[in-house]
């Protein structure tokens, strides 16, 4: 009985509108960013050149900014906003207003940055390392994106706080709790990038100061750059923990452990940025290693997640009468895109996570640092695990928000899309991993390096990447077709927003999980512990600052 009631719970139509606004931006970014990705792989195959004076590094910047910042941030904010609305009973007028204001600020910022990239005033890649100096409008645009995301995210926090006030002593709805953890982590992490942009890069690009401290800027960037990838991953984990069990007809293995793993992510995904800087001068190796240890701590909640998911699958399978060690695997609903698509993402996280452990392993990073292995790595984590889960979410969330139904045909197309994606990525990411082990650099246009023998060995892998990139682009076309169908053309109906319940309802989540003073305090202490001394060292020993350079090709 309770089941039939929960299926009818709808996201408030006013909240649905805001979520959909986010998704239109996100999927536009996917289409355009995907095209750029295709062009990059074609250029790097050495068989094709960009027309009309378009520059490889310009489209690389567009691809990185659109996929890494715009698609992800807009999708995540739209999804979490809907998830909080669904599980708390809807946002207040004030929260909704905050959401809209944040959305528009992010959009204006995106357009400002995009304009400068198109004008070739900002071919600095999405990592925008100083002393490459982009146009100040590019930096201001990125500031707007970050500040917009804070205002946007504060809508979720406001609604969560209101729910807590109205339900004293009750653990908050799991999805809302998870959304708020991710938003809070995002706010803490973006403080770093906001600091380098506002206090270093903006004044410098405006000509107010002559030089910039490069290592400080990079350290602030990577303080943000690693939690950024967890900001992408946690919404996928929200789907895996709290939505997928409902889709397959099972239960959440443990509500408390799900919350605990999210708290561990909040604590350990931030003080780890040095593992992106392992081969950099100017940072003491002991502090690098300390952050490597903290990086390994963040693997623990992922291990917990893997256990919970497969426990849910197995218990569901056995409840359907499956026998044997792996009999449960067969009875999972493989014909349901809402399950199968995220499942392919989930499975991809096993090799993706293992690759991540290698990257973070202190001196082992020297073998792969800035090789295309790393590009292959995050095309498994972000561009497969995370993105396929986002696609899987869209298949029910978009029709839920637009009052339509996921038809059988679109469901089937969704499953085909995921397999196309998987095959394309196996080619592209696989070839990137192998080429990286042979030393092939990332972020580089096609080059024979003066006819060097080693560079010639990389070319077959680059051709395989172009084959993979082409297949992936077909996948993007399929995804855009499905999105447009679900947003505008699918038949009217009631698509469920699936929210799973825990197996053991007697066991309430301990209230200590909602003690924000405690968790924010520990998070702050860990960040201060990991960064204070090395950061003071960096500033005290810093060399004279760098003036700006614009070494990229201009119109």
């Amino acid at each position, binding site marked *: 009985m309770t089941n039939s009631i929960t299926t009818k719970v709808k996201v408030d139509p006013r909240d649905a509108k805001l979520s959909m606004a986010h998704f239109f931006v996100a999927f536009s970014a996917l289409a355009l960013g995907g095209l750029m990705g295709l062009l990059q792989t074609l250029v790097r195959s050495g068989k094709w050149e960009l027309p009309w004076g378009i520059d*490889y*590094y310009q489209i*690389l910047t567009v691809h990185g900014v659109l996929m890494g910042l715009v698609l992800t941030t807009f999708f995540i904010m739209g999804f979490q906003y809907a998830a909080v609305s669904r599980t708390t009973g809807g946002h207040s007028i004030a929260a909704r207003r905050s959401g809209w204001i944040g959305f528009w600020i992010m959009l204006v910022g995106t357009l400002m940055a995009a304009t400068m990239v198109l004008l070739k005033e900002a071919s600095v890649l999405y990592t925008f*390392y100083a*002393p*490459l100096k982009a146009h100040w409008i590019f930096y201001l645009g990125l500031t707007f994106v970050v500040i917009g995301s804070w205002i946007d995210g504060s809508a979720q926090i406001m609604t969560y706080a209101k729910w807590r006030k109205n339900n004293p002593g009750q653990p908050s709805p799991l999805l809302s709790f998870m959304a708020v953890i991710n938003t809070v982590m995002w706010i803490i992490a973006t403080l770093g990038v906001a600091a380098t942009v506002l206090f270093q890069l903006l004044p410098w690009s405006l000509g107010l100061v002559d030089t910039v401290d*490069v*290592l400080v800027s990079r350290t602030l960037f990577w303080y943000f750059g690693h939690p950024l990838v967890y900001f992408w991953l946690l919404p996928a984990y929200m789907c895996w923990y709290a939505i997928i069990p409902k889709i397959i007809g099972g239960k959440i*293995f*443990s509500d408390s*452990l799900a919350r*605990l793993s999210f708290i561990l992510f909040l604590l350990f995904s931030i003080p780890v940025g040095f593992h992106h*800087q392992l*081969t*950099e*001068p*100017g*940072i*003491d*190796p002991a502090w*690098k*290693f300390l952050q*490597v240890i903290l990086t390994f701590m963040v693997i*623990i909640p992922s*291990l*917990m997640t893997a*256990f919970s998911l497969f*426990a849910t699958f197995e218990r569901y399978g056995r409840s359907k009468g499956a026998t044997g060690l792996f009999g449960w695997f067969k009875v999972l609903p493989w014909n349901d895109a809402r399950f199968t698509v995220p499942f392919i993402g989930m499975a991809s996280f096993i090799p993706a996570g293992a690759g991540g*452990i290698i990257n973070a*392993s*202190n*001196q082992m990073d*020297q073998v792969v*640092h*800035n*090789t295309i292995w790393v590009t292959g790595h995050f095309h498994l984590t972000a561009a497969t695990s995370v993105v396929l889960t986002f696609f899987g979410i869209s298949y029910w969330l978009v029709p839920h928000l637009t009052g339509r139904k996921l038809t059988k045909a679109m469901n089937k197309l969704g499953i085909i899309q995921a397999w196309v994606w998987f095959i394309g990525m196996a080619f592209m990411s696989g070839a990137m991993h192998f080429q990286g082990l042979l*030393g*092939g*650099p990332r*972020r*580089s*246009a*096609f*080059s024979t*390096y003066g006819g*060097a023998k*080693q*560079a010639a060995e990389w070319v077959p892998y680059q051709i395989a990447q172009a084959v993979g990139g082409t297949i992936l682009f077909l996948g993007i076309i399929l995804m855009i077709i499905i999105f447009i169908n679900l947003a505008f053309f699918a038949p009217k109906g009631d698509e469920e927003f699936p929210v799973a319940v825990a197996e*053991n309802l007697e*066991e309430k989540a301990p209230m200590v999980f909602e003690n924000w003073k405690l968790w924010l305090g520990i998070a702050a202490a860990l960040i201060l512990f990991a960064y204070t001394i090395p950061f003071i060292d960096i500033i005290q*020993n*810093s*060399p*004279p*600052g*760098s003036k700006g*350079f*614009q*070494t*990229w090709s201009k119109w």
Partner: protein
Amino acid sequence: MHMHKFEKIWLAFGIGALVVFLTTVGVSAFYLGNKPPSCLTTINVDKVDQTKPFDKPGLHKVEGKDWDYELVYVASAFSYNPVKVEVPLGAKVKVIATTKDVVHGFEVAGTNINMMLEPGYVSEYTTTFDKAGEYLIVCNEYCGAGHHLMSSMIEVKK
């Protein structure tokens, strides 16, 4: 909060594996000396050409040090100086490099030499070239329009 027995076993196994990994890289780094390049020396980026040892890029034999040669590189958009060097097989070499402008990479493909060059900082890594052959040095950190053209060559000869 209840935790299933199997989950405890799984986490014990997983965390145990992480401890083994960390111990391995930690011992290798701090006991065997295989730390990632982390040189703390700074330099005035505008005076690289006048500052030792960057006033004389190239391979230099040294005496009385733990290594036999010093191999000095100056990187700038979009080249390395020197463009080509020959290193005797089996030589223990300290590679010392810096940049005169933006951030560059310094990766010797097929070896463990892989370090960032940042303006104002010196990067160092000591290694033994124990396999003959040609080793391509590539810039693996984006530095501008000619990033993919930036390279140099080490030839390890008997």
